[in-house]
């Protein structure tokens, strides 16, 4: 399979998704970074989104406000989640 290569952070996020949501039979490398997590992609739903937000909070100390207009964009895929985590880390490092 010629899936695009994952960055280290993308693999980490993909594993977090798998562990948090109890996705048996899946490995981090099986989730293409750009595949949509919700709807027709991986098939996650709104409860999974809440669960993922909680996991991000616990693992990366990132809080996502419930009225955050960009949340939908951040949660679109493993790649966008990784970019979001990286940007939050950059903010904290400043």
């Amino acid at each position, binding site marked *: 399979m010629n899936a695009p290569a994952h960055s280290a952070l993308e693999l980490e996020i993909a594993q977090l998704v798998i562990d948090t949501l109890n*996705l*048996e039979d*899946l490995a981090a490398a099986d989730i293409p970074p750009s595949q949509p997590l919700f709807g027709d992609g991986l098939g996650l739903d709104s409860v*999974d989104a809440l*669960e993922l937000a*909680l996991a991000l*909070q616990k693992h990366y100390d990132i809080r996502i406000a419930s009225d955050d207009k960009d949340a939908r964009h951040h949660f679109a895929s493993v790649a966008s989640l990784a970019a979001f985590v990286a940007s939050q880390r950059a903010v904290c490092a400043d």
Partner: protein
Amino acid sequence: MIAFRVEDWRAWAPGLESTADWQDWARAPHAMPDDAQAQPACGFLPALQRRRLGRLARMTLETAWPLCGEGEQLPFVFGSRHGETPQTLTLLSDIVDGQPLSPTQFGLSVHNAIAGQWSILRGQRGESAAIAGEADTFEHALLEGVLQLAAGAPSALVVVAEELPPPAYAQWIADVPFSYAVALRLGKTDATTSAGSDWRLEQARGDGATPCAWPHALDFVRALLAGENTFQHTWKARRWNWQRIR
């Protein structure tokens, strides 16, 4: 007094999966080692649909699944005295530790959650009940199932499932020696199907008899396989007289 046909049944416990396993167990009932991890595969479901099934839900689905035909709608009764105690303890521990609760676990922390999961995964739109009684929850769940037959359903599913509680509950829960699920497909005694066996169940005044050595659902499986025709289950003031009539 109620009468019903057991058209078919399935049971699961750690190390007891096939009918042959249960026949061996029925000949010499003993406590099964339960590491609180072993659980049914539920391989009939894609992984994505298994993600929110706890161990008790998996046991329930594994046993009930083959008893309901494709496209068939059956009333469903879920009976469990203690419910999903590991999840309950996790949620309570998170509250004590001041941690946020898992939305998934919180959303499923009701006694009828497993009946709901069955309904969603099998596309069941009919009657569904979740009950919790005492050590004779099995008999009360059967009563509920037979009431569904009396209300017009040709068959009904009754699942009684218990999960080995975490050690924190040891002082309070004494009637779950190991995790188990027993699913029965009930039918009317005058049904045209010839499969299964007919039973009469009558409640009488208890006489302080010794409680059953095994959970009632497991003792029923034992009696069913051993070809026993009469037995009693006594709990407090209630004595349940079982009699095989066919």
